[in-house]
């Protein structure tokens, strides 16, 4: 027997902390270098900075190492770290038309301004387990890089410019639905102010930007599959880097650095207002840190669905989507079930035993101190 007055809790925690560190290191292999994680686990790092809500790839790599590769946990560590930093500035509005494009595709048109650029994507790799990766050597890496670089025309690289967007084509033709003048366009900051419902679009996009990819995917997919009516087309999906600028106290706009983002503009058709109104196109928008196509596509779908509230379709319900795709919160609460609840449970027991007594369906009450009759 060991119980309440035992002060073993602290020891237990310390031992458990030590043990988990042992599990991380027990095979005594070479410790992972942060650079290796940042570089070779690039997409994991991207998820962590996105869901952690802090553009800090180095810190994200450390968090991934610390969390033994658990992305939820690493994102959580990064968010907690973020709390210790004061918000000093808001960046100037980022203009994604300035993007240095690394990938740019459209499903709506065969040809788009600047062409379709697949860029780095696993979309058309055959997902065959490549066992040669098991024996990859630094020499292999070097050899690959050498051959690859020899194929690059550096003169051409200089001439890469920015491209017009697909949605501009639609806009010029008057095919896009105008923004509803009654829409709440106030700018929220969900990191400084708890979200309130109905939330302005800015808050919805911010929430989704930090949301868990899998959660967004489940919601977005549900709407396409049948529990809703999303039927979008990828207007344009881009991945690339963007300059970030901030205004210093003297009012001068200064360049702060570059961030990598993925952006999606999802096109769906809607009928505006009354039943007989002419249908138009509307854009659902998605943007996140790093490269994550799935996330921005689902953001785009959900941006559209949440604009037409419908309690019968989970994806059209702001509160449902935004509260439940928040990964750090849902993970925390789900895991809190592991905490002791014996006080609340005792209270419930008390009520249920009394209710059974009232119904004369008396539960066999075991007297205090008597051993149980049930075989253990």
């Amino acid at each position, binding site marked *: *027997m060991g*119980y*309440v*007055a*035992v*002060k*073993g*809790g*602290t020891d237990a*925690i310390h031992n458990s902390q030590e043990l988990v560190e042992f599990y991380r290191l027990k095979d005594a292999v070479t410790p992972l*270098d942060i*650079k290796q994680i940042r570089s070779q686990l690039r997409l994991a790092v991207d998820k962590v900075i996105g869901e952690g809500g802090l553009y800090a790839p*180095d810190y994200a790599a*450390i968090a991934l190492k610390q969390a033994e590769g658990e992305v939820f946990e690493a994102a*959580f560590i990064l968010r*907690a770290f*973020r*709390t*210790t*930093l*004061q*918000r000093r500035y808001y960046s100037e509005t980022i203009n994604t038309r300035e993007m240095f494009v690394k990938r740019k595709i459209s499903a709506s048109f065969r040809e788009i301004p600047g062409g379709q650029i697949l860029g780095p994507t696993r979309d058309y790799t055959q997902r065959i387990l490549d066992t040669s990766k098991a024996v990859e050597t630094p020499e292999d890496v070097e050899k690959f890089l050498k051959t690859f670089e020899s194929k690059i025309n550096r003169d051409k690289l200089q001439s890469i410019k920015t491209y017009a967007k697909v949605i501009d084509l639609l806009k010029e033709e008057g095919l896009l639905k105008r923004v509803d003048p009654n829409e709440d366009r106030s700018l929220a900051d969900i*990191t*400084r*102010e*708890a*979200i*309130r*419902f*109905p939330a302005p679009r800015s808050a919805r996009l911010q929430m989704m930007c930090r949301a868990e990819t899998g959660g967004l995917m489940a919601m977005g997919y549900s709407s396409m599959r049948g529990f809703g009516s999303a039927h979008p087309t990828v207007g344009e999906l881009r991945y690339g880097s963007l300059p970030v600028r901030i205004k210093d106290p003297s009012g001068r706009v200064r360049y702060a650095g570059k961030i990598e983002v993925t952006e999606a503009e999802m096109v769906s058709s809607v009928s505006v207002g009354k039943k007989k109104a002419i249908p138009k196109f509307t854009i659902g928008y998605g943007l996140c840190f790093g490269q994550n196509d799935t996330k921005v596509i689902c953001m785009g779908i959900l941006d559209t669905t949440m604009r037409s509230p419908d309690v019968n379709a989970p994806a059209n319900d702001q*509160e449902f989507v935004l509260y439940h795709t928040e990964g*750090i919160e*849902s*993970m*925390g*609460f*789900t*895991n*809190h079930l592991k*905490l*002791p609840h*014996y*006080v*609340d449970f*005792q*209270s*419930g027991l*008390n*009520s249920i035993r*009394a*209710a059974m007594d*009232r*119904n004369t369906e008396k539960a066999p009450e075991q*007297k*205090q*101190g*008597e*051993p*149980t009759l049930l075989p*253990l």
Partner: protein
Amino acid sequence: MVENKKYVNKYNFAFIDEATKKEIRRKLLKAVAIPGYQVPYSSPEMPISRGWGTGGLHVTLAVIGKADVFKIIDQGSDASVNACNLREFVHMMTNCKTTYDTTEATLIQTRHRIVEEELNENQIYIYQVPQPEPLRSVERYENKTRQMHGEADYAKMWVSLYESFVRHGDIMFGAGYPVKVNDRYVMAPSPIPKWDIPNINDSKALHLFGAGREKRLYAVPPYTKVEPLEFEDVKFHPEDFSSYECFKTGYNKAYLDELYFDDGSKHYVINDSNFLDKMVGHAPLNQHSNKYLDKLKHEQE
């Protein structure tokens, strides 16, 4: 390898940055000014999981000063693993003295219990709240529950209490029994047992509630009326331990835990670990008094 200097941790006193602490304090002042009203706040992420006491921690870290003495319990126990973990964190970030002794503490953070000993005017009692919205069981949408509070429209809540009575012969709420504060707001007291509910009423201490995941703060100022929801003919009642007793002390006018020993035998023990320690050590005890407990004591005499 990355240059180490870049990654040395330096944290502000009490972890949270000052601007955010100020924000939390302002929201707490609003909460105190409108007893029982849920004030939305920023709720920054803590290095503790959501749902594991982040709201309580925000409150603690926003109000703690260097001279404070900090006590934290979970399920009534100072030794519970989560309480130990949070105690270490608060200590690490503030270097404040920590204690198990209820009377010595100036700040007490709790999960799911109010200590058995009476609180005083110099103490702040901080609750970790999983679900701040008492109406969530009858209305799932946040914008609707806010409206219901605004209009003091608690009809659905009353109906649910009534239905519970009709179906089961009693109001079946266990932990987290809804209360009305200052004759105005219905409030979730956090999942404390019914045993503890009367001890918030007219308390000498300031009671602060933090729901981190749901991003709400609320408060019950000292000497405020807090009543459990009940009908004229169907009354609230605390848990009944009259037929059991603590196997260590023989006492049964405190909240008891049900234990099963290795041979499967059932025993009861006082839940509040400091209260139990003091009672076993014959230290002076000043238990809360409330009408239910007083009646119980009176009946036994």
